[in-house]
């Protein structure tokens, strides 16, 4: 059974240099935006409006509109932040890490992954700013010469994170754009009308595809990939340090950095699957995004799930091993306390359900894959919520223990950011070749040859 799944070809029938170019370019430059696109944009746009409203409420009235309190001074915003940055990181892992391993299947998926990274990072970037008590002053975290003669506090994990996030977003944009240059050239050359040609002409920077250009391109792209792969690991490790840098039981743990990276890749791959399956259908890219790709990603998801499960196990083992009463209380409380349900839902969604992926049949069923991907994405949000809230609400001082619950505004921000993500991704779908054409050509060249 599984052999057939694995043996699914990396290219469908009728694949050719011309075909791949035309398919990917024409949906953008030769065809009007399809109805489903408008519907989707309208839908996600509505959520963006919600985000704007929630943000305005936040800026005008204050952080108090949220559920945060003392002791639980961090709430949704931080959970959302880690969640989004995790999704983003997953994208970079696929495009950068697997570029280095030279895996063929990556070529069809990296553009989707990178675009997802950008918008995931964008949503992530909003959260820490929303989260501040005085949002307008977020720039005080930036080391710039000022009339106060004072600097940021470089020992704070939050500051590391601030820098890491900015660097990461910036680097991801460049990486994404660099990969796009040759494809923009293809778009330019396929563009039927002058405005399009100018538009993509400018974006393509006058790329001609000469041997020397290709050489430089490959060198730089390779190096950037080498840099981004470790960077994304480091970025999410630092996100882990935001918590393990504190002494709160449930945060103060050595394994947080790798644990967070596993989680990040996990949710990232899930999101890629969630986006890729509809995209390949809607854009008729089955020839280039085949069962093989789905199969590989599904397996990767399963592996990440297992790594994460291991982390959960370690997390459960440590309190008992250390015997620290605060850790013990926190952990048992996490399982059976006020938020106990969330923990078990998390286990179900992140550890149990994905085991279905052992079955090739499941890996072949696009519906099931999407369902599982969705459940993982939700599960990962819950995990972050648990890390933030259940650690804080009962820490050292019994007298200060209290519970937390998100308000309607917390939820609005979360849903709004989801809307922002999809809107952004839809825009990318509309204006950017969603599969890396030049890299697909190599695949075609290798498997089919150059003649149509």
């Amino acid at each position, binding site marked *: 059974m599984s052999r057939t799944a694995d043996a699914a070809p990396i290219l469908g029938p009728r694949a050719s240099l011309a075909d791949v170019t035309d398919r990917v370019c024409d949906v953008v430059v030769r065809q009007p935006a399809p109805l489903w696109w408008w519907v989707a944009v309208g839908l996600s746009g509505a959520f963006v409006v919600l985000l704007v409203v929630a943000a305005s409420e936040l800026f005008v009235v204050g952080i108090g509109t949220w559920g945060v309190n003392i002791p639980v001074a961090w709430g949704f915003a931080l959970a959302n932040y880690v969640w989004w940055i995790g999704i983003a990181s997953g994208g970079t892992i696929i495009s950068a890490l697997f570029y280095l391993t030279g895996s063929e299947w990556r070529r069809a998926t990296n553009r989707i992954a990178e675009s997802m990274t950008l918008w995931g990072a964008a949503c992530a970037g909003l959260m820490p700013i929303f989260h501040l008590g005085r949002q307008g002053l977020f720039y005080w975290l930036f080391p*710039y*010469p*000022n*009339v*106060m*003669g*004072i600097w940021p506090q470089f020992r704070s994990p939050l500051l590391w994170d601030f820098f890491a996030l900015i660097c990461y977003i910036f680097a991801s944009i460049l990486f994404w754009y660099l990969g796009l240059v040759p494809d923009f050239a293809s778009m*330019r*050359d396929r*563009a039927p009308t*002058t*405005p399009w*040609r*100018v538009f993509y*002409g*400018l974006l*393509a920077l*006058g790329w001609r595809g000469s041997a020397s250009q290709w050489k430089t391109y490959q060198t730089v792209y390779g190096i950037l990939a080498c840099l981004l792969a470790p960077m994304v690991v480091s970025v999410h490790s630092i996100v882990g340090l935001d918590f393990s840098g504190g002494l709160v039981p449930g945060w103060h743990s050595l394994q947080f950095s790798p644990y967070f990276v596993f989680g990040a890749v996990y949710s990232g791959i899930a999101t890629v699957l969630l986006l890729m399956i509809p995209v390949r259908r809607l854009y008729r890219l089955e020839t280039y995004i085949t069962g093989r790709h789905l199969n590989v990603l599904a397996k990767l998801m399963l592996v990440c799930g297992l790594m994460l499960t291991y982390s959960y196990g370690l997390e459960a083992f440590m309190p008992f091993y250390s015997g620290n009463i605060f850790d013990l209380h926190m952990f048992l409380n996490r399982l059976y306390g006020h938020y106990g349900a969330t923990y078990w839902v998390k286990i179900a969604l992140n550890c149990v359900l994905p085991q279905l992926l052992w079955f090739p049949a499941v890996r072949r069923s696009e519906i099931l894959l999407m369902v599982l991907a969705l459940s993982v994405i939700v599960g990962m949000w819950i995990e972050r919520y648990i890390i933030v809230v259940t650690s804080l609400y009962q820490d050292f001082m019994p007298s200060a223990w209290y519970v937390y619950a998100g308000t309607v505004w917390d939820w609005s921000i979360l849903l709004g950011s989801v809307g922002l993500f999809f809107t952004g991704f839809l825009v990318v779908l509309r204006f950017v070749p969603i599969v890396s054409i030049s890299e697909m050509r190599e695949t075609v060249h290798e498997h089919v040859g150059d003649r149509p």
Partner: protein
Amino acid sequence: MANGLGPGADLAVKVGLSAVALGLVCLGLWGWGGPWDDYSTQRNIVQPQPVPFSHRHHVSGLGLDCRYCHTAVEVSSNAGLPPVQTCMTCHSQIWTNATMLEPVRQAYATGKTLRWNAVNYLPDYVFFDHSIHVAKGVGCTTCHGPIGDMPLTWKSASLYMSWCLDCHANPAPHLRPHEAVFDPNWRRTPDTPSGEALLRAYHIHPETLTDCSVCHR
């Protein structure tokens, strides 16, 4: 053509990009220097006052001591704003019908007091104490500039935090002997004790002066 772009495109784009780059640089420079210009700091800007009071006339001219009007400066965080009465001690005798002084006489007569416009003031979260500065040999003019020669009063220091810190981090050069504190045109002479000597004499511990809690409470 292939780009759908005219022949000038290359030049245009290059110019455009360099313009953007230049703009960013300028923005940076403006952000750096902007806060220090007189508009932002309100330095050297004369505030309109109900009565054109001249420190030059009263201090340099008549030789009044700062403390004659700012009575609290040695004992209080606040230097003290002279009551109208203080003006009238002299001006009930001299310039008794100078139109310039009409508001003062009005205030004194009606009890509806004058409204001076503040020249030097700090944000509310900054707690400045005159008495300790004066006690430790920081002269009036060190912060208030050539106040004794101001025909009308203006602010002569930015009063920015970094400006305060410059002195708090390294007070020695700004110290003077006790007797010179209220001297509006004091100059360091060869025989004035060195800043370090004064530092020791006043028992100033510079390492404690940059504590945030020195000014913020």
